[in-house]
């Protein structure tokens, strides 16, 4: 697929084209926060930002989502029988999504769509109806480390198209049939555009200087890594607030709860967090992860040891750095992973 380009002055036209078939969402400034916001033709797109505060995972896996409902009346012959909620009525497009967040969707596909017999239909419905137009990072933030976790500032996997900000114009690289179709009207990029994009990619990659190493974590068996002495201190500052799990674009744990209001009964799922002791608490009172150490270890073992075993090598991290920048006690995921990777006994 050939690279395209668009002058920034013509962006409204592109937005108009995309909005013909999709509800379009894009990062927008809200005070000091960067949030995902609905954009309409005529709106000005924000291109100067590092990333949104919250990842876009809520588009496919909402913080609270109604799964089904029922008539809460045992006497009614139709009562007490669950009915699934309908899917999305139309298509969506996430414009200017960062490559790391798109990669996170690819990781979560392996979780939610792992088993054909038990595919998470709520994830799949929204996933299949969501188009992703990425915006490459030209200026990674100090907590970014995507280049050492199988991702990168210009990473293309999972995107339908990648935009690269080249000053007065954008390079538009279609990466799927959908991306190609939606950008068909744009003019072909020149060689200088493609070269400028490549130069920006190299510069952005070089700007990321702190990363993680995982070769020892990978080589050890589960119990060896689980018993790594680093876990005796990593948990100490943690207050089990769960902030990291909510900000993380690949954290996918959830709870299911029922609610009734008169005759209307509903079953919801909500984001949950492995940092909570209730998460694994048995009704008997027994708790297999009863201590803070157990829970902190679970989060990092899950992402960097368990997920690769289950998901053909995919780790549960894309290097977006949100957990590090949002942690109230300054736990840096890079330090944690590098500690987990240290030689044991030294």
């Amino acid at each position, binding site marked *: 697929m050939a690279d395209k380009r668009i002058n920034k002055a013509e962006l409204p036209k592109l937005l108009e084209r995309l909005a013909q078939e999709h509800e379009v969402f894009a990062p927008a400034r809200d005070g000091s926060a960067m949030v995902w916001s609905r954009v309409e033709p005529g709106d000005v797109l924000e291109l100067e930002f590092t990333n949104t505060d919250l990842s876009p995972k809520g588009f496919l896996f909402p913080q609270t989502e109604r799964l089904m409902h029922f008539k809460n009346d045992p006497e009614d012959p139709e009562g007490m029988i669950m009915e699934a909620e309908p899917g999305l009525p139309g298509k969506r497009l996430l414009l200017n999504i960062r490559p790391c967040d798109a990669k996170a969707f690819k990781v979560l596909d392996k979780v*939610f769509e792992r088993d054909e*017999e038990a*595919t998470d239909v709520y994830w799949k419905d929204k996933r299949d109806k969501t188009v992703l137009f990425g915006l490459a990072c030209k200026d990674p933030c100090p907590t970014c480390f995507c280049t050492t976790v199988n991702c990168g500032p210009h990473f293309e996997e999972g995107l339908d198209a990648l935009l690269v900000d080249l000053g007065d114009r954008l390079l538009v690289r279609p990466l799927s049939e959908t991306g190609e179709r939606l950008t068909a009207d744009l003019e072909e990029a020149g060689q200088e555009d493609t070269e400028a994009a490549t130069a920006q990619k190299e510069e952005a990659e070089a700007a990321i200087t702190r990363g993680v190493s995982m070769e020892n974590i990978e080589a050890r068996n*589960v119990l060896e890594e689980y018993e790594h002495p680093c876990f005796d201190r990593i948990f100490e500052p943690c207050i089990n607030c769960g902030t990291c799990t909510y900000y993380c674009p690949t954290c996918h744990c959830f*709870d299911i709860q029922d609610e009734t209001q008169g005759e209307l009964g509903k079953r919801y*799922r909500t984001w*949950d967090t492995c940092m909570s002791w209730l998460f694994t608490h*048995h009704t008997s009172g027994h708790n297999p992860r009863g201590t803070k150490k157990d829970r902190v270890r679970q989060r990092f073992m899950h992402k960097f*040891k368990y997920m690769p075993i289950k998901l053909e090598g995919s780790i549960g991290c894309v290097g977006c750095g949100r957990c590090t920048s949002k942690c109230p006690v300054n736990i840096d995921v890079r330090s944690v992973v590098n500690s987990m990777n240290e030689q044991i006994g030294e």
Partner: protein
Amino acid sequence: MKNPYLPYPVRIRKVEIATEDRSLRTFELEFLNREDAEAFDYLPGQFAELSVPGYGEAPIGIASSPTEGEHLTFTVSKAGLVTSKLHSMKEGDIMGVRGPLGKPYPLKDMEGKNIVILAGGYAVTTLRSTMVWLLHPDNRDSYGEITFVYGARTPGMLLYKDTLEEWDQRSDVNTYITIDNHVEGWDKYVGFVPQIAEEVAPSPENAVALICGPPIMIKFTQPVLDKCGWTGDQIIMSLENRMKCGIGICGRCNVGPYYVCKDGPVFTKAQLDELPKEY
């Protein structure tokens, strides 16, 4: 595409108080729709989420065997929100069942082998299913000797008494039913499951053991089997952990990289020896 979160509607066909302390009830459920009954294709060792609209779901081992027909049997301990509500429900009430979930006992791999079953307390449920399945005329000849040891605190805490009596009468299964302390009129075994297992001293030769019971029973049964020469890959156990989705996504029931709901609940002792003890 099938929605794995949507329970099949079922009707409670029968409820029975299962133990003298009234903490357990046995429910027989029938599907409202024929096609759901057909879709619910299960084997012993699997479980289901019992879904009580308005209260939630609880993962419970299936106590019936598919050889018994289309109804499902569950014996439920009154413990939390969902199971307490279940205990107040009556015959004819509508609820839901989601499953079958998890992997069954490896019945195929067990063919041609002697089977030793050790059960304690109400963990006997999926082993009842297994016994009924093994003793069915279609299956019995595929297996060697069958030994069944089952213990409860008192005679009144034994589940499925009629069925136990039936097995005790059969010549093709060695049944050892035991209670903790002797009581008037009791003519079967007395002692904890590990003690009885020591007396029986099951041979590990060409054999598989299925063990299900409270942690304390498993802790003291293990040395007995070790002494008899059993190895970890011959010992099959069933775990439980807190669950929600039942399909390996919601993230809470894992033991190391494996989800009890999806990759288990059945694991060999050898597998568990290589995993954190987070169960």
